[in-house]
Each structure stands twice: as C-alpha cells, then as structure tokens.
C-alpha cells in the first residue's frame, strides 16, 4: 500500500517517458491520474489508520516494529563488510500519526500542483517526469522508517527540484536553483555523516546487528556503550544533534539559513512554489520530529530554549521582512518563514499542546500557503508582474478572486474560524505552558500583529482603494457607466477560471472546515504526539506546577 502510494508517480513518469513529447495533453492527464491515485490511496490509508496506536518508538513488549502501521519491511541491501560486520539496509516503510498527516498533505498538494502545472508549455514531457520523480521522493521521505532509505529519498528530492527551478524558473533561475542546491546539499552531507555514526552505535534488538532502522534508533536502550554516538559520548552526541539540526533547519528554513527560500520562490514557477512551500519545508520540521529529537532526547531538552529562540526570531524577523517587500511572492515567501517559526516554537515547547500545534501548523501552513502561492500565480499570469504597488482597486473588478484572496490572507494571519488560527493558538498555548519557553512565547505573540500588518497592508494596496495611476491594467468605462478592466496580452477570463477554481475551492473548504472542527486531523495526531512528548521530555511533565 505504502509502496504503491510512493511509487505511483514514478510509474506515471515511466509511462510518460513512453509518450511522445508532442502529446502534451496525454502527459498531463497521466500525471494527473497518478496524483489522483495517490489521493485515493492516501484516503484509503487514512481510513485504515488506527489513531490509537502511537508509533514513534518500539512498543514495549508488543510488535517489534513499534506501533507503526502498514509496515512494509524487507531487507534491501545487505553486504558483508568483513571486519565491519554485515551492512544491512532495509526497505522499511510505515506510518504513524506524525507521518500520516504529512502523507495526506503531500497527496493533496501534489494533485493541486499537477493542476496548476497545466499552463506549463515549455518541455512538458521533461517537466512532468521530473515532477513525478519529485512527488515520489516527497512521499517516500514521509513514510521511510529506515534512515538510509530516508536519506535516499531526501537526496532524490533535491535533483528534480534543482532542474524544475533551474529550467522552468524565472529570469534569475540558475542562481536560485544553485543556491537551493548548495544549501540543501550542505545540510545533507552532514546528515550522511551522522547517519553513519548512528549506524555504528545502534544495535537492532531483533537481529543483533547494526541497523539504520529509525524505530530501533529512537529507543535509547539500543545504543551501544562506548560507541561514537553511544549514550556515554556526550560531546559527539551534541555535535551530531547540532549538525543534524542544521541539516533540517536549512530545509525549514530557520533564520540564518533561510535566504535560499525567497530566491527559490520568486524564481520558481507557481506549481513548484506550491510544492516547495506546501511540502518541502515541512520535511525539515518532520525530520526534526522523526529523527533529530527522538534520537537525541537529552540534547533536545538541553537545546529547547535555543530552538525556541530561533523560532521566535523566525516569526518576528520573517514578519518584518515580509512587511518591507514590494514583490508579492517574496512577501508570501517571507510569510512562510514566519509561519514555520511557529512550528519551531511549538516543537521547542516539547509538550503535547505545543507539538500538536506545531504539527497541525505544518499541515495548515501546507494548505494555506499553497493557496497563497496559487493566488499569487493567478495575478502573475494576468499581469506578468507581482509588484504590490502596481495594482489597486482590484476588488471592484475581480470579486471572486478577491474573495479567495481574503480567505487565504485571513487564514494566514490566523483568523479564528480558519485553520491557521488553531495551530498558532496551540503553539502559543504549549510554549507558554513551559517556564523555559514562556518569555519566548510572550515575545513571539507580537508576530500575530505584524503578520496581520503586512497581510492587510498588501491586501489594501492591491485590492482596495482605487486603481493606481501606474497600474498594470487598463480601465475603461462603457456607455452604461460600468467600469471594465483588462490586462495587457491576457486573453483568458478576467476573474478566476474553472481550472483555478478547481484548485482553490478544495483548499478553501479544507481551510475553513479544519478551522471550525480540527479533530479529523488532530485526532490522528494526539496519540503519537503524546507518546513523542513522553519520549522527548520527561522535564515537560515536571514543568507544570
């Protein structure tokens, strides 16, 4: 099942490979079918999933795979390295509460991405092959339970992203692509080192050999005394944690390592921006929750405060930078930096509310930001520019579009009744509950105001008021005194057309529904999160009272 959902896009990619590149429509439809198939499978998995099983670590006594579900575990590579002993890497998939939400998100966003790729005209075949490769890699990352496998998917994701930005991107695409590539590779190189270090310090209780299995790694009992990352080599464990954290933080992206994001977003085509913000950023925080924190809980407890501080910096700093942007897409990019800061803050709290808020925020940020980028794409298609000051008064002429923008913008600024609010709220609830992170939470609350500030300001400048004198669209008044506008060389429908609506409406519904009643998603999380909190932070339990 999981293998199917992971490799379905690849299969589609192979089919596309066989399709002559002139048959653009067929290619598109094939990949759309693959994406929809993924969606269906995701829903099936969701239905089969039993939210009462925790996952995270090996269930004490119970199944050796930990209480993960839909396990697929077969030996993949096993070599005899002579004096090093056998190297056995497993093809090990499984889901728990943390990954299943991400699986749902990924399936959703991939489908949306395919739809929004419909307008790509340049080298359609190559584009969709790469796109499907990317889809597989993302899905794989979220279900892989073997560190090596995870790493493979992680790297596999890098390649198509590089080309998708570097070939189908905007004017400055090579720069952006290289930057993205360098940054992420930089992170993953260290991840590789840590991975090997972990391999040699963990013994799988089942086989008695070294293992890459994350489930085994997440259980501190399996670490060998005196091994490089064994329980007693404190220094190395700290180093490993930090290095690993940086590796993931680059993907998040966390404050000092965030500069690839705006460039990548500004240059990337709309669907890729959607994927990037919708799913790829989540991989960073997901990696932290799945690998970084559970494997080094004691280091994490020591580092909670620092992580929280970085989260706060992300929130405030991102909001301020967004406030200053003239390019709408860049503003949205910075806004997602700010929003990922909430995730970091929630993780730093290391209690159920915070973690739950963080994970829920990951999901919501996925949907909301996807919406934001789609909407930015819509206006960019029409005006071929994203300069906020070059519009004004659009609300009078594109009411439907304005409606969606309003929903998305308000969701993003955390308006109650829309999903963004609940996650942010519980991030704060969690962060405030801990003495450690309380001051950080108090500071970060400012982010709410500035978030509202830049969003409302851009909303006003683009949609409210009157047409700016140097606006990018022409205004004409017909005989009846009705005003009409049209963009230069835009032949399509002025307001949202059917394709754009089919992309936006589902997202909008999800955003609103999850804002009103979040249990459908939260219910999946709670058990796993509580378990994770137990693994992570015994201190969290003593912190209250």
């Amino acid at each position, binding site marked *: 099942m999981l293998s199917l959902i992971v490799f379905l896009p690849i299969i589609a990619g192979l089919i596309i490979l066989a399709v002559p590149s002139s048959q653009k429509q067929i290619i598109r439809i094939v990949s759309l079918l693959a994406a929809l198939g993924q969606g269906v499978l995701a829903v099936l998995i969701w239905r089969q999933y039993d939210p009462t099983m925790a996952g995270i670590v090996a269930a004490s006594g119970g199944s050796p795979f930990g209480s993960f579900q839909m396990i697929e575990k077969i030996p993949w590579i096993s070599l005899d390295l002579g004096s090093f002993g056998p190297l056995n890497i497993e093809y090990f998939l499984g889901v728990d509460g943390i990954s299943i939400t991400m699986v749902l998100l990924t399936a959703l966003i991939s489908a949306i991405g395919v739809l929004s790729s419909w307008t790509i005209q340049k080298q359609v075949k190559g584009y969709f092959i790469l796109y499907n490769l990317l889809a597989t890699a993302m899905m794989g990352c979220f279900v892989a339970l073997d560190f090596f496998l995870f790493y493979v998917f992680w790297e596999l994701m890098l390649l198509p992203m590089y080309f998708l930005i570097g070939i189908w991107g905007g004017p400055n695409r090579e720069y952006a692509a*290289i*930057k993205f590539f*360098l940054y992420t*590779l930089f992170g993953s*190189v260290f991840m590789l080192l840590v991975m090997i270090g972990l391999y040699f310090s963990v013994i799988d209780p089942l086989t008695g050999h070294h293992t890459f299995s994350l489930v085994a790694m997440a259980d501190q009992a399996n670490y060998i005394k005196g091994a490089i990352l064994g329980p007693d080599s404190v220094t190395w464990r700290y180093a490993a944690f930090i290095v690993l954290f940086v590796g993931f933080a680059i993907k998040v992206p966390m404050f*000092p390592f965030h*500069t*690839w994001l705006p460039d990548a977003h500004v240059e990337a085509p709309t669907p890729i921006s959607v994927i990037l913000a919708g799913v790829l950023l989540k991989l960073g925080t997901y990696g932290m929750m799945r690998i970084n924190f559970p494997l080094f809980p004691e280091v994490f407890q020591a580092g909670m405060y620092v992580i929280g501080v970085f989260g706060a910096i992300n929130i405030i*700093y991102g909001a*301020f*930078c*967004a*406030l*200053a*942007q003239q390019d709408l897409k860049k503003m949205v990019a910075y806004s997602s930096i700010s929003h990922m800061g909430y995730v970091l803050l929630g993780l730093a709290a290391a*209690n*159920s*509310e915070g973690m739950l808020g963080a994970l829920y925020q990951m999901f919501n940020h996925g949907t909301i930001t996807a919406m934001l980028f789609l909407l930015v794409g819509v206006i960019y298609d029409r005006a071929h520019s994203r300069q906020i000051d070059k519009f004004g008064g659009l*609300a*009078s002429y594109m009411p439907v579009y304005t409606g969606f923008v309003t929903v998305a913008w*308000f969701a993003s600024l955390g*308006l*109650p*009744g829309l999903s963004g*609010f609940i996650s942010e709220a519980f991030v*704060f*609830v969690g962060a*405030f*509950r801990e003495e450690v992170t*309380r001051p950080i*939470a*108090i500071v970060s*609350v*400012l982010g*709410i*105001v*500035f978030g*509202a*500030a830049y969003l*409302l*300001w851009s909303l*006003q400048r683009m*949609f*409210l*008021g*009157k047409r700016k004198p140097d606006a990018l669209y022409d205004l004409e008044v017909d005989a009846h005194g009705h005003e009409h506008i049209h963009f230069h060389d835009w032949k399509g429908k002025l307001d949202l057309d059917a394709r754009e609506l089919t992309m936006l409406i589902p997202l909008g519904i999800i955003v609103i529904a999850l804002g009103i*009643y979040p*249990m459908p998603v*939260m*219910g999946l999380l*709670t*058990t796993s999160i*509580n378990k994770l*909190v*137990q693994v992570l932070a015994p201190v*969290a*339990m*003593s*912190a*209250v009272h």
Partner: protein
Amino acid sequence: MMHSLIQLSIAVLLLPLLSFVVLIFFNRRLPRGGDFVGLGLLGTSLAISLYIFWNVIVQHYDPAFSVAWNFTWLDFGNVPGVGPLQIKMGIVIDNLTAIMLAMVNLISFLVHLYSTGYMHGEKYYGRFFAYLGIFTFSMFGIVLSDNLFSIYIFWELVGLSSYLLIGFYFHKDSAADAQKKAFLTNRIGDIGMWLGILILYSQFHTFGYQEIFDHIKNGDFHMSQAWLTAAGVLLFMGCVGKSAQFPLHVWLPDAMEGPTPVSALIHAATMVAAGVYFVGRIFVILTPDALHVIAFIGAFTAFMAATIAITQHDIKRVLAYSTVSQLGYMVLGLGVGAYSAALFHLLTHAFFKACLFLGSGAIIHAMHHEQDMRWMGGLYKKMPWTFATFMTATLALAGLPLTSGFLSKDAILAGALGFASVEGGGIFYLIPALGFGAAVLTAFYMGRQIWLVFFGESRTHLKPAEEHGHDAHAAHGHDDHHHEVHEVAWNMRLPLVVLATLSVFIVFSPDPLDGGKGWFMHLIQTPATVVASTGAAHEGAGLHVPEAGKLLAEAHTDTQHVEAAASHEAEGHGPVFADPRQAEIAHMTHENHYTAIKLSSIMVVIGIGMALIFYVFRFIDPDKTAQAIRPLYLYSFNKWYWDEIYDATFIKGSILISKILAWFDTNIVDGIVNGVATIFRKFAFANGSFDKYVVDGLVNFTAFTVQTTGAVFRKVQTGKVQTYLVMVVVAVLGYFAFYLVHLMK
C-alpha cells in the same frame, strides 16, 4: 440532555450565520439583493431571543439563574503531565446573557430594517446584509460562549466583520485605511487578551470560565499574585482594544467611515460594548490592582474623549467620541466595582446611542451625505420624527432625570464616589472627578450638536463650493444636487421610535431617580470576587483593610445606617460580600447614591447651560472663544494628536525596522552566503571551464572541508577519464601504504 433554552439559543446563534452564507453566495441572484432573507432570519432569531428573555428574565425572576451546556471540541488524549485533556466549547445562559442577547438581536434587527432604507441603491447592497449577518453571528457567539477560547474566537470574528463593514466603501482610501487601522489596533488589544488567557490556561489547563473561577477560588493559582493581576490587566487589554479605551481608542472615530447603520450597530451599541461585557464576565478574577488600572483608564478615556467631542464638526465623529467617552464610563464603573451599574449603562447606552446614530444617519441621508454640522441647522421642522427621537436619546446620553441614561450613569458615579472613599481618597478621588467632568462635557457637546443640527436656520448654502459634496461617495446612487430635505421613510423611522422609547426610565426602573429599584439591578448583581484581596500578595489591600474596618465600625454605630443597610437588603443590592473590600464599596456606593444624583444633575445642568450660553443665546461667541484659547482648541480639535504620535512612533517605527531588517536580510545574511559562494568561485576559476564553476566550487569546497589537497582536486575537474584513473591508482597506493604501516605495527 440539552436544556430547551440552550437549543433555542443555538438556533439564535446560527440563524444569522445562515443569513450570511446565503447572502454572500447568492446576493446577486436574489431579488432586492436578498435583504428579505437577512430580515426574515434576523426576525426569527429576534422572536426566539425575546422568548428566551421572557423566559429567563420575567418567568424565573432570579439573580442566580444560569443554564450551561458544553461539548468536547478538541480531545488531546492522555497528555503527559496533565492527564486526559479536552478543550470544551459551550453555552451558558444567565440573566446577563439573556439581556445581552435580546438587546443585540433587537438592535441588529432594527438596523437591518433601517438599512433597507439607508443603503438602498448601493452597488453591494446584498453583501452589506451578509456582513451584518456574520457580525450578528459573532456577537451572539461572544454573548453566549462559556469559555475564554471561544470568546476569543468570536472576539476576532467581530473584529473581522467590523473590518469588512468599515471598509464597505473600500474604493475610498480613507475607508481602506480605517478598516486596516481598526483591525490592527484591535489585534494589539487581542494579543494582550490572548496572553491573559494563556496565563490562566497555563495554570489550569482549561478555558472555561467556571472552572477557572473555581480553581482560583480554591487557590490553585500557583504563580505569584502579580501574575494574576497581569492576567487581569491583559484580559482587560482585549476590552481596551474592542471598547476603544485609551490608548487604543484611535480606531473608533475613523471607523465612522463605514455606513451609518454599521456605526450604530457595531461601533456604538454592540461590538464596542463587548469589551465591557467581557470584563464583566471575568470580573471576579480581577485583583484590586487590576481594578485600579481599569478604573483609571476608564476615567481618563471618558474625560479625554469628551474633551475631543466638543470641537468636532462631523456629526458622526461627535457621536463616536461620545461613544468612547461613555464606554469609558462603563469601564470606570467596572473598575470601581460598580459591576451592575456598568452593565446597566452598557444596556441603556446601547439603546440611546444606537438611536442617536440612526438619527444622524437619517439626517445625513436626508442631507444627501452632508456630515458636517456647520452646514446643517433648522432641521427640526423638516424632520419632526427624527428630531423627537434624537432629542430623547440626547437627553438620555446627557443623563437628565427621567431618562434611562440618568439611572445608569448616576449609579456608576455613585460607585465611583464610594470606591474613592473606600480606597482612601487622595488620587482615587480623581476618578469620580473625571467622571463628573465628563458628565459636564457630555451635556455641553450634545447641547451643541442639537442646536447646530436642528435649530437656527439652515446653513447649507454657507458651505464652500469646493468642499461641496466632497464627502459623497461615488458608488452611492444619489447625485449631489440639493433636493428639499424631507423626513425619512417609515422603515428608517420605526427603529428610531423603538429605540427612543427604550431610552425612557420606566423601561428599567419604576423610580426615575434610582435604577437600583429596577429589575436590571436586581437581576445583575455584583458577583463575589474569587481573589483574596487581603494578604501579602496585594499590598494595597494591606493599606485599606484597616480603615475599611474602621468605616464598618462607625457605620454600624450610626443607627441611620442600619435601616439603610436593611433597605439596602430590601432593595436587593446583592448579598453582603465576604470580601471586606467589596463589601465596603457596595456599602459606600449606597451611601453616596444621593450625593451622586445631586452632583450629576448639577453637572448636566451646567453643561446644558454652557451649551445654551454658547450656541443659543450667543452670550459668548464660540468661534471667538476658540480663537482666545486657540492652543487648547487645536489640541482638542486634533484629538490630542494621538494619531500623529502613534503614526510617528509605532507605524513609522515598525516600517523603518522592517526596512532595516529587509536590508540586513538581503545584504548581510544573504551577502555572507554569496560571499561563501564567491570563495567557491575562486577555487573554481582554477579549473578553467566557466559555466560549471559553481558546481566545481561546491566539489572543491567539500574537498577542502575534508582536507584533501587542493592541487589534486583541481586536476580532478578536467573531465578526463585518465585523471580519475590516476586518482584510483593513487588511492590504491594509499591503501598499500596503509597496509605497510599496518604490517609495521
């Protein structure tokens, strides 16, 4: 099993939402923009909430009445360190809820009715009713919700609907600015409120009022008392934002950019009062320190706003500032512990202020969107209905006897006096002083307004031509030629009449001088505080408790007090409080009741007298006076320059910071990155081939990081198989060397 009232209240809650959903999607397809949908649904819910009112208030006439219901909204499972954790949402219906529900629903319905006339011919006519729908829904939510989380949700939702409605004429830049300003200012208040909620949650892991109160009562609050005070003040910040208290009052006057019915509904009667309602809800957890803060802010706001109101020209701005001032009264009332008085004022004010706004709307409508009072005048014979109702409401606002306003305002002032005397005078007498000062000013500016608008001769022709019609907005159907000013149609007149009737004393109390005899004061009684005001935690208490005791002592000595106390019981002025401080205040309030009546009546008379002197008999020419005290005049006319100050500091400041940070981001942070990249290039140039230099740079970079010699690696980058082969051989040799060394050992 749900109580039938609960089911009904849920219906009341959801009907406006339904109206919103229907109208927002179908307003273009429905005839008349679907206003009948809004009206119909609101009418239904009005009927229901009146039934609830009847049931709660009239049938069980019981101060302690309360029905509650809740359901599990979020289930966090078994949270480590907390145990099973669930977030509940729920509804609580008590007297206050029932009254608020009826009030909000009534005014909302009247405004719907009124808008069918006022907004007629607007381009987004249907959308207007949709917005009214969602506003009403969220307002009901605030009134009904039984926990801090849901009230926060609806709190922000009313913010949203206010945002939408202020910006209803979004093509006007002023409106767009105003709506943004309103939302952001409220947001600032809200984060304070949110932090307050967090403080309480972090202790009790629940949002429900009742649980929190019980926990505090049982002394489960494990942080220092200062945190509790902070929680109180922070929660009050929410009210500061919503109810436009100083320092966040600046948004309300600008909010008058919205259509007048909106100003009446949201920015006079209901939403702005929500802040007061909320503070009332959490009244019991407020520590004396927190109450002092609240009292001072309220008093200051009341006074400041009144001083601003006396010099404004725009008819709606005058009313806006008077609203701020009146809200200040209510907050003051809460601060001084005159809980029921404050909420009483909330109710009465809602009616007469809504009446005033709708009246001013009628005038503006009739004057074709002329809002400047300088160009009005002599309307009383042209618009008799409007005049009559406006007059009644004005008197109520000014607080003349026989009006509802008198009862409530007097109760508040009495409370203020009592409070001051209990707190031991000194600085605390400032509060009633400011209160009375505001009373004078209120009477004055209302008198001024009445005169400028209704009396004298019409001054429309005086209006300078270039300003002419400059307020009229393009989307509105009316052209700006002057027709004859005429009385408005029935659908706009009826609300005025209803509201005016509700501003008469008899509705609330049989005794025109004492609201305490009325049903309201009986049903809404000051709840006993749950925080221990004595003890080390609250140093202020340490001071005043002894003298409170002394007061009690002498009070008991004089016999006249005893029957006072008896009558006090008889009149049902609430229980005798366990908490000495509250008991004292309640007692002294009663003592000061008649003083307050006398004083406030005098003040009102003074105020109206001044108005007459200035504007009616023209003993003193207002303009000359203005010239004489120009700096003061300007200071008041420019609203104490708050906007300018905020703009210079916060707005400009944050934009500046954002610019700096953006620069920092692109030049420093990114600069470092690019700097590293250029270092890569330096290595890479050695390899000759240009287009792959960054990649080579990366390879070299990794190579250098693993400390292999640069020279060999430059060779590597020739793309020749042979080179790689050489590398392999070298590596093999390396292995041999290693092996050799191995053997040596």
